[in-house]
């Protein structure tokens, strides 16, 4: 008995100590409860090979370029997605221009702080344009950095994959936020401009003296606001039968954009009842008002029209009649902020600070926050 006992004890002790060898402490403290804060991340320094303008000049209209050269650009983050008007991307700018980096994650301002220097190693990424439309009435969109899009639907796609981002977008020192520069009307970019030809494009700028509304001399109509709604976003958004364009003058929209709640409020008010459903050349699907339903208690509903947040472009004019759109996302925190009556009726002008962008040849200002729109009485 004695022997067996000894062997058993011995082998059990061996068993126990076999794993103890690695580290007793690790075995019994297998996890750590976080009482020790990790260090601050190190920032990197790199040497850019190209300015933003130089990079933009390598873009040829209609041909997204999958970058196969060693190109490093550098710039300061000029936007924030915190108020929600920028989404999934940010702009960086150097002296020559600004460019959107299509990261594809939300809450970017947490990782890429406004004022932080960013280096982008562009090899393997894709240089492309968003918002180009041919024709004399239209023109360029914006040259951006993203990833290739094999579907061809867009010239670039978002980077999205974390490893892809981290191996191409590097974080440098955090400095003061970008100061906007004032763009004189005469320096506003033409519809054919890019960062390569105008050093204001893609940068944080201020445009002054803007009056609400823009008269389109070509189509001879007054433009005030524009929004695209869908009857059902679960269905094909490209179908004409699924689209409602709210545009022109008298749209009833008096907020910078509309949250889901606000959109329902506009819809129920009946102000869009006369709007036709469908694309401009295909008004074959009735009117918004056809969906109006009032129950016995007088409760109004529009079954079949989805309530959803919507982005709105408001049209402004410079003193010489150049169109400046202020585009605001329905998901931004200031979407439902009312545009002051004095602005809507033209008695007050606004001064807008935002990214100077082109969309189909027209100037779009995209603001970081509502405080970037100043009313000048």
């Amino acid at each position, binding site marked *: 008995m004695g022997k067996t006992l000894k062997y058993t004890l011995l082998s059990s002790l061996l*068993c126990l100590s076999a794993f103890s060898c690695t580290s007793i402490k690790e075995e019994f403290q297998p*996890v750590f409860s976080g009482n*020790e*804060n990790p260090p601050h991340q190190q920032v990197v320094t790199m040497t850019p090979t190209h300015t933003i303008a130089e990079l933009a000049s390598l873009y040829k209209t209609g041909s997204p370029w999958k970058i196969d050269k060693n190109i490093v650009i550098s710039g300061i983050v000029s936007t924030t997605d915190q108020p929600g008007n920028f989404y999934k991307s940010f702009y960086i700018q150097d002296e020559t221009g600004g460019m959107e980096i299509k990261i594809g994650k939300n809450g970017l301002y*947490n990782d890429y702080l406004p004022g932080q220097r960013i280096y982008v190693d562009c090899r393997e990424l894709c240089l492309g344009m968003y918002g180009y439309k041919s024709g004399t009435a239209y023109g360029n969109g914006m040259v951006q950095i993203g*990833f290739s899009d094999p579907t061809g639907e867009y010239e670039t*796609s978002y980077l999205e994959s*974390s490893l892809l981002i981290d191996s191409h977008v590097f974080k440098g020192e955090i400095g003061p936020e970008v100061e906007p520069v004032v763009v004189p009307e005469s320096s506003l970019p033409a519809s054919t401009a890019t960062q390569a030809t105008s050093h204001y494009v893609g940068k944080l700028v201020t445009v002054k003296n803007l009056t609400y509304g823009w008269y389109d001399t070509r189509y001879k109509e007054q433009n005030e606001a524009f929004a695209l709604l869908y009857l059902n976003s679960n269905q094909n958004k490209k179908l004409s039968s699924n689209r409602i364009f709210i545009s022109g003058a008298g749209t009833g929209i008096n907020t910078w954009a509309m949250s889901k709640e606000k959109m329902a409020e506009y819809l129920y008010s009946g102000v869009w009842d006369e709007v036709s459903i469908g694309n401009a050349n295909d008004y074959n699907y009735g009117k918004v008002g056809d969906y109006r339903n009032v129950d016995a208690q007088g409760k109004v509903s529009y079954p079949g029209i989805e309530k959803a947040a919507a982005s709105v472009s408001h049209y402004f004019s410079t003193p010489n009649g150049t169109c400046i759109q202020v585009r605001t996302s329905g998901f*931004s925190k200031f*979407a439902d902020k009312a545009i002051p009556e004095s602005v809507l009726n033209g008695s007050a002008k606004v001064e807008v600070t935002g990214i100077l962008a082109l969309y189909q040849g027209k100037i779009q200002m995209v603001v970081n926050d509502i405080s970037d729109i100043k009313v000048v009485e």
Partner: protein
Amino acid sequence: MMKRLILFLCSLCALCLSASAYDGGIKAKVVARQGRAPIAGAVVSLYSGQDLLSSQKTGAEGDFLFPDLKDGAYTLEVEADDYNSTRINVVVEQGLIRDLMFVTLSPARVRTEDVDASSFAEFDLDDSGYSDAPTILYGANDVYTDVVGYGFSAIRFKNRGYNSESQDVYLAGVPMNDAITGYSPYSLWSGLNEAMRAKDTSIGLEGSDWGNGRYNGMTNITALPSAVRPGWRFSVLSNSALYRLRLMATYASGELDNGWSYAVNASARLGGNDWVEGVYYRSFALYAGVGKRINDEHKISLMAFATPGQRGAQNASTQEVYDLMGDNMYNSNWGYQNGKVRNSRVRKTFEPVVALRYDYTPSDEFSAGATILYRCGYNGYTALDWYDAMDPRPDYYRNLPSYYYLEDEDYNRSNPEKAEWAKYAWTNHSKEFANYQHLNWDRLYNVNYNNPNGRSKYALEERRVDQRDLNLALNLKWLPTEAFNLKAGANFKVNRTENYKLLNDLLGGQYYLNIDSFAERDFASNEALVQNDLDYFLANGKAESITQGGKYGYDYLAQIRRANLWANGTYRKGGFVATLAGTVGYEAFWRDGLVRKGLFAGLDDNGKEIVYEGRTLTSYDDNGKVITSKGKSELSSFLTYSAKLGLAYELIGGHRFSANIGYFNDAPTFNQAFISARTRNTLVDGLTTVKTTSADVNYQFTNGGYSLRLTGFYTGIKDQSDVMSFYDDSQQSFTNFAMTGIDQRHLGLEFGVKVPLFVQGLSLSAVLSLGEYVYTSNPNMVQTIDNSAEVIRSESVPYWKSHPVYKVASYTDEGAAIYDQDAAGNYIVESEKKHYVPSTPQLASAIELNYRTNDYWFFELGGQYFAHSYLDMNPLYRTHLACGGGDGVETPAEVEYMAAQEEFNPAFVLNCSVGKSWQIQRKYYLGFSLEVNNMLNNRNIKTGGYEQTRLISSYGKDRYYRFDPKYFYMQGANYMLNIYFRF
């Protein structure tokens, strides 16, 4: 019982005068305590003082006779395999043969003397998404429960397919099932195996001395200090499946001559395991009890116990993630912080229980008792919380290759290059890629460091469920005649449970803002609506800043009141036993919101609507009732009752036939009664009691080492309800799903047999559980938007209990089915495919070879086979909406794809164990047991999981695809070694 017998005999002794006749004797029948089955082959030894006079084995009927004894005091020692041995003092007087009638033996609760390896697992199942309950507790001497109770825990076997909450667990006579969820609360005493070892267990529909139970067995854990095995006991246990080390010490005095009894049991469970990184224990347990018997009639016991500590939890992932990691045990809950492993999901509990028990035994015919039990403390579960920042979970679907590319073009995931980047990040297992495969704590801290004013964007929340649970249980036992006994009692429960979130760790920041990030998705532009605490916001003009340890998010009380009266009577005549049991009760509950949430502001304290910046915050439901988050909800109350009838017939030779039938009308639980208890007072519409009808028939045979049981059972459960909350892609919103009228049917067989083999000490056991547990109704569901309480859908779930299989006309070249249509163009349904109650094998079987030697070695080798286990279904995939796709047109292909239920592959598991105990100097006992489970190291056995509720819209938006389900797997080969020492 035994003690009373001894007392009785001692008193006889005092009366007796010594005589000198030699024709006296002792006879009796040795029977099992439960069912009074005769025990054949028991060894009965007769002592006079310390001297062994004679020894014999009992006959087939358990009978023995020691003839030719002179008058005097004797001691009988009775020992039998699988039973606890017992000693009895007997006095022979006046030359008569003392007929003791019955000597009852209680079954040994462990498989071999002093191996507590088995009881180890019953209380220590980790909480990887499961409720913390063993499959079934050890029953009486029953092969089936013996094998199944412990051996099937790794596969997460649910006995007869029942949920854990159907298992009634009592402690010192008090029903302990959780007041909110109904779950059996084993975690309250896990690690206190010694103190909680003594228990009465019944299976199926059987009742007990402590209550009537329901249909899934009933266990009363004695928990009294006097019931803890006397002596000192120390054990060291190491295992590779859950935690590395358990240290346990126990001392119990037994009942001392002065009537006092003491018991202490303490343990520590520490460390990680071999299979799942991040899962660990740092749990302690302490039990202390003191009891005093006062002049035979009164006995008072006071016990207190608690199991403070923390455990890291495991998480399920999709097969894609497991395959990328090359490991089905991958756990997405942890990551590196400063190079060290940190788990984000930690259960932190300290829930002390104090109980005072009074037993009153005025006579052998009548006894009564009462217990007051109070449970308090906290139960926390940490999780990452974040606001307006990237989802930090490593296995978030947008981090996976499948999000970027899938071969089927219809998924519209068409960027193979990006998928390669994602795949590279997952499949390179060097340290520099660890942050893509696990949580990146360092990044979370850095985000917080960099936020202006020290606002944390990532934080660790702790979801607290803090119970105050006061119970009173009364019970009495009346045995007026041998033929009839009556047991009755009453239970009362008052439960107040506060549910809230605590800020556990700001992760390097200074404060966290108390706003609802889900509400902000819809109401970003309405600051008041996104407030978690609107009153604070209105008073201070800004959201509250929460610092470490602060309450935030939600805060409400669950209030529950419950009272039950029960009685059961047993009538015996010859071998016939009939038991009739009845229970009647009342249950009421309500929610009491402690904070006003912006989304459901309700009316202010003066009954007026609440308005902020011109927008009315007060909202109403379709019936015009105010939807409110603060204050008391409507009271839900239910009359509950149950009735049971049991009949049994025992034949000589160890045969027993029995049949039970019962009907139960139970209240729904609190956690199934509110559409979204986190946010508002709204009750599920059409809430009603759960009605269960259950019956079983049994045949048992025990004789000469053979043991067998065969049971057939049927249970129909009607009108269950369930609530869940999830993100619905078709609504682009977080929604609540309330289901009512869920019916299911459990039909099956249980079989267990133990056969002694040709070598002494060798036996073979086999068990089989074969059932069909199916859903039998298409429940009603009401889907509401969590942010607005707007009802968006109220209909039945058409493919819940089954889905149609359509007739196929032919196949395309690509292998796609072309479905046959009738003349009217309708698809032809060929059959219906049933949907099953999930997460347990409907066929479970085991065969075990058991060998024990006379010098206390034991060896066991067992094989288990499991089949017909199904994945838990989410109701969304069984709706017309999900089967119809964006165009709303349901095709056979869509229905057969979307509504189908996954069946897991069958599994075979091989286990073995060995053990030995030694007696040292007749005083000390040393022993060990070593178990190796899953010896074939099979790492592909799914034990459970769940379907995600997300939908992927097809390229043409005409149909939906599912997200991949998430699974849990059984661990590979693992060992457990237990060494103990007692005296």
